[in-house]
């Protein structure tokens, strides 16, 4: 719709083709680097070799069985999960900013993360530590997902009058419900013993550490499907930035697009949070950066947010497991430590010309 229209003096435009190719190449390099670096360093050529041989190409094996195990059982699932979760959270952030017509909005406003956190803590305190490790993780994850969905449904229900969602009410309802969930979480923390307390705290700070191929599969579906659906709404989302009434005058089915956006965001954030805990700031910072590069049009903003988010979280996860090796920092801590100051700097630089 906007192709062929002149770009110009707004501070953030590049030609169409280069960003796509450049972005993909950068992310590819990041993912490759992420796969090769870590407590057991694997040569990049060996990584490529193992991938090629798995694809059926004849490659001479120059790697050790240990390296092969590390790559396939630990490294690749982790890199894949960080990319998918990073993509999902960033895309959810871009969609939330469009929904609230505010570039400072982020998915937490809908209450998903608060609800997921509450229900995860519930599962931890209710004694899932008595179960086997795998079952415990899955129980916490499923509980978190249910919690996230419940809070979003509650917020959406409060905000919908006569079948028409009100974004202002949604914002306030999200704040209220998040506060309540926070209170519930606080209560659980007082009931928890030391081990549970530690578990909850680290879960809230986010980690890609438990990455397994089944988790990657869940993320692929839980992020991939909603992402594809949302990309088709790009023109309608652009029109809705003008305002609900204006968009309706343009023929947009605003109630459906709003409800659909909330559902997509809830799904993606719910899945990501349940698999990896709370990873903050991606949904706020990534769309912001993407918008500065390709502008606010959703046809470019959404795919670039996906790309940037995937690369950023993969890089953050790499840092989380190398910076204090052999210990691992929670990745959510890193995204906050890096994202917070970055965002502040952006605000300071651009507060005169928003």
């Amino acid at each position, binding site marked *: *719709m906007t192709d062929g*229209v*002149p770009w*110009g003096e707004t*501070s953030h435009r590049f030609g169409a083709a280069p960003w796509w190719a450049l972005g993909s190449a950068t992310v590819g390099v990041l993912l490759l680097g992420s796969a090769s670096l870590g407590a057991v360093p694997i040569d990049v050529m060996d990584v490529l070799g193992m991938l090629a041989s798995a694809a059926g190409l004849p490659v001479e094996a120059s790697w050790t069985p240990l390296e092969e195990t590390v790559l396939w059982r630990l490294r690749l699932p982790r890199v894949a999960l960080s990319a998918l979760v990073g993509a999902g959270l960033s895309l959810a952030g871009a969609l939330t900013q469009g929904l609230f017509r505010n570039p400072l909005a982020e998915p937490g406003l809908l209450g998903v993360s608060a609800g997921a956190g509450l229900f995860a803590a519930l599962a931890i305190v209710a004694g899932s530590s008595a179960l086997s490790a795998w079952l415990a993780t899955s129980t916490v994850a499923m509980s978190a997902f249910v919690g996230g969905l419940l809070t979003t449904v509650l917020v959406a229900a409060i905000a919908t009058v006569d079948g028409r969602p009100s974004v202002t009410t949604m914002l306030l309802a999200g704040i209220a419900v998040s506060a309540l969930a926070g209170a519930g979480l606080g209560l659980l923390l007082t009931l928890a013993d030391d081990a549970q307390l530690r578990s909850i705290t680290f879960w809230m700070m986010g980690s890609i550490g438990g990455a397994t191929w089944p988790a990657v599969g869940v993320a692929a579906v839980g992020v991939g499907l909603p992402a594809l659906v949302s990309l088709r709404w790009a023109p309608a989302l652009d029109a809705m930035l003008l*305002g609900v009434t204006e968009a309706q005058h*343009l*023929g947009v089915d605003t109630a459906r697009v709003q409800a659909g956006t909330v559902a997509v965001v809830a799904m993606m954030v719910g899945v990501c949070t349940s698999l990896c805990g709370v990873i903050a700031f991606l949904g706020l910072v990534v769309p912001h950066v993407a918008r500065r590069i390709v502008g606010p049009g959703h046809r470019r903003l959404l795919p670039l947010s996906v790309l940037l988010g995937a690369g950023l979280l993969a890089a953050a996860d790499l840092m989380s497991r190398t910076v204090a090796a052999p210990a691992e920092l929670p990745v959510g801590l890193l995204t906050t430590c890096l994202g917070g100051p970055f965002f502040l700097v952006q605000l300071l630089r651009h507060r005169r010309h*928003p």
Partner: protein
Amino acid sequence: MLREVSLSVAVGEVVALVGPNGAGKSTLLAALSGALPCAAGRVLLDGEDLTRWRPGPLAKRRAVLSQSHDLGFPFTVAEVVALGRFPHGPDPGDAARVVRALEEVGVGHLATRGWTRLSGGERQRVALARVLCQLDSPGRHALLLDEPTSAQDLAQQRRLLQVARRFADDGNAVVVVLHDLNLAAIVADRLVLLRDGEVVASGSAAEVLDTEVLGAAFQTTPRVVFIDDRPVVLPHLLPRQEG
């Protein structure tokens, strides 16, 4: 609240809705656009009840320029105007349509400017370009304008009114809400004077811009003078200026 309002606008006509604050001008426009459902009565577009029109086809036939232009994202002016093409889907001719709309309204030089850097008056003109771009298709259209000249200087007021006039002359219907009675007299074929949700006068400028008629509607006695046989409403002098 509107009471017993009956209005029809034909192709080629510009109808101006005038009246005091709170008379219901914007409410009537909102009802005509379909944004405000009618508790009683109907709105017909091309003979068909508005509630029976599907949103897509309706958006291709009627466009609304509202009073507020609130967009907090840094689209370029050209991109904002291009948003008007949403009902039609993407088309290779869109870039040309955008340029045409920008030139018509006189904001061609702003095409690559960021929306957030525009003045209020410039935003109003860009919004008009968007709305014109929305209706850039064969056939008859309805253009509803709510105070399109409120933030414009003399030259731009004239230009925008010319745009509205030309649009009607090209085979479309235009309804415009105006505070300024003289601008209404210049651009419109018919003035509809509202007060407290009712139509108290309807007709040509000469018929509606009458001292008694206006006095009753506005609860103040205006001065109506005639220049070249056309009525012109002048503001009343303040007490200390007289004598």
